[in-house]
């Protein structure tokens, strides 16, 4: 009995030592991605840019679903807010790009503080429903306020040049745009990696594992859930803003529920609660939908079936699969 416990501990220790650091794994994935984006023809670079943008979206979502076990089906709210935040502030106030992004993120933080403080009190089914509701409110409003959002047709804008160390970089060149977005991707990952390995991240995991116990230990669970919600909204907003910059366009569809489903799929495929999983999930699924979507327009049937099959056979995602056989 005792010996078996010891071998178990020994195994666990070996496991801990052998598990590479998150940042190392991340670099192993990000570096090839960067090279691919730099050397490839334009359409591949665009695809990699999309992968990077949606990776930010999915990583932010992972903080919510994977780390604090709050299942939201309404993240597109912040994706759309981020996109329109940057688009409208550039369009109507003529600010430069950084200010536009900062305005967009500020809006996301404020709205998520407001809606989050209402919704994170709810759990389970009620939380899912209220996130859907908030998402739908914004979606319906964006569809109907055509004077502001352009509705279904959307609005286009000329992306202003980027002020970077006293140089003005034009984002019209797709490689410059790619580098800009990629650097924000790296920064996002580093911030989130710091966050989850800090004591705050441990509290998040505590909430996921046993919310009640954390309450007894004296943690204000509501506050930490709210922080997770806001962080997630912030990165959803950043990703939305970058997507609007990449396309020079935003439409009411940015608020749609199908955009809310994307990070769920990506996180699920890669493995939730791992931060790197969502990135892997995006790398797998996004090109898949891109190419299959070009061949067969009903490819969402495959996505739907994939969701169900993954949940059934491999709920821990690609990361879980790798961990099982190492």
């Amino acid at each position, binding site marked *: 009995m005792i010996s078996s416990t010891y071998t178990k501990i020994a195994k666990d220790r070996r496991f801990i030592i052998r598990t590479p650091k998150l940042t190392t794994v991340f670099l192993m994935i990000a570096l090839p991605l960067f090279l691919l984006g730099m050397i490839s023809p334009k359409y591949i670079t665009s695809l990699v840019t999309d992968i990077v943008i949606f990776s930010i979206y999915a990583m932010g979502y992972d903080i919510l679903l994977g780390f604090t076990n709050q299942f939201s089906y309404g993240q597109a709210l912040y994706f759309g807010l981020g996109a329109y935040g940057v688009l409208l502030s550039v369009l109507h106030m003529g600010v430069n790009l950084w200010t536009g992004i900062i305005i967009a993120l500020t809006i996301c933080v404020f709205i998520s503080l407001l809606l989050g403080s209402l919704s994170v009190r709810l759990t389970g089914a009620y939380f899912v429903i209220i996130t859907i*509701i908030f998402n739908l409110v914004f979606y319906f409003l964006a569809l109907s306020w055509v004077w502001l959002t352009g509705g279904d047709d959307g609005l286009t804008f000329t992306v202003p040049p980027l002020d970077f160390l006293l140089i003005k970089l034009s984002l019209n060149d797709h490689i410059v745009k790619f580098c800009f977005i990629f650097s924000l991707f790296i920064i996002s990952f580093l911030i989130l990696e710091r966050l989850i390995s800090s004591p705050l991240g441990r509290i998040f995991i505590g909430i996921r594992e046993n919310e009640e116990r954390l309450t007894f230990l004296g943690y204000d669970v509501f506050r930490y859930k709210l922080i997770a919600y806001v962080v997630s909204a912030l990165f959803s907003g950043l990703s939305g803003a970058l997507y609007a910059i990449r396309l020079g366009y935003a439409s009411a569809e940015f608020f749609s529920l199908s955009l809310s489903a994307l990070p769920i799929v990506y996180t699920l495929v890669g493995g939730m609660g791992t931060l790197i999983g969502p990135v892997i999930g995006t790398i797998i699924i996004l090109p898949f939908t891109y190419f299959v979507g070009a061949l067969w327009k009903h490819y969402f049937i495959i996505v739907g079936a994939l969701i*169900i099959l993954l949940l059934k056979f491999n709920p821990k995602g690609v990361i879980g699969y790798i961990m099982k056989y190492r």
Partner: protein
Amino acid sequence: MLLPEILVKILFNLINGLIWALIMALIALGLSLIFGLMGIVNIAHGEFYMWGAMLTWFAIAFFKNTLFGIVLTIALLASLGAVLERGVLRTFMGRPTYTVIATIGISYILQQVALAIFGGWPQAVPDPIKISIPIFGVGYPVYRLLLAGIAIAILVSLLVFLYKTSLGLQIRAAMQDEEMASAMGIPVSRIYTITFVIGAVLAGLGGALAAPIVQVFYLMGLDVLAMAFIIVIIGGLGSLRGTILASLIMCPLENLLTVFITPTEARVVSLLVMAVVLLFRPQGLFGGARG
């Protein structure tokens, strides 16, 4: 007797709202039953409704037979419900997050299959009966009143089934306390399948009834899903009487609002009412107890 135009408009919106409320009550009851018993937030519920409408349109357009459409709806949605419950949702029992994600997957599949089979263009079902009766000097189509009658008949028979038959009693018992019901010898597992089938068929019938009123379109489910959530939350998740009451109040109210503001803004108002109810009275406005 001639009424001022605005009053006539309000009146007609109220009548239309009431008819729509009866149809919505069917759909929301399906959602409420499924949640009340199995704890599943069924995102695919709007798709069940859409399939009901699509099948009815299909039967009328190609076979010129409304009854065939309704039979087809019941048959197809019942088997679909059974397959989905047994094959998919059963696996994720007790893990609410997984079931919600699974129903998102199901809704994608149902939506795209409908798009592939029936095409992406909004279809209109021709009025089944072309007679109209005058109400305050304005002709009102009879078939809408007929729809209301059918919806009431279905509602009444559902309530009779739930409250007067032994199977209905078993369903309500399982909703109240699953373990106890199981201990009393109620085959809870079979009750689950039956309830999910009933829920799916109710949504499908709602779609079949709504087909002549609304545009039949593969994305029509989203709108109804939102409304069904509003009704179910305001009435209290899992409370059947509350669901019917909430439907009868919210749908006419929303229709009434559309006299003054756009339909989208009216929907946003309902959504906000629902958010307030959810936050301050999560058990719903009408009665706290389930069942």
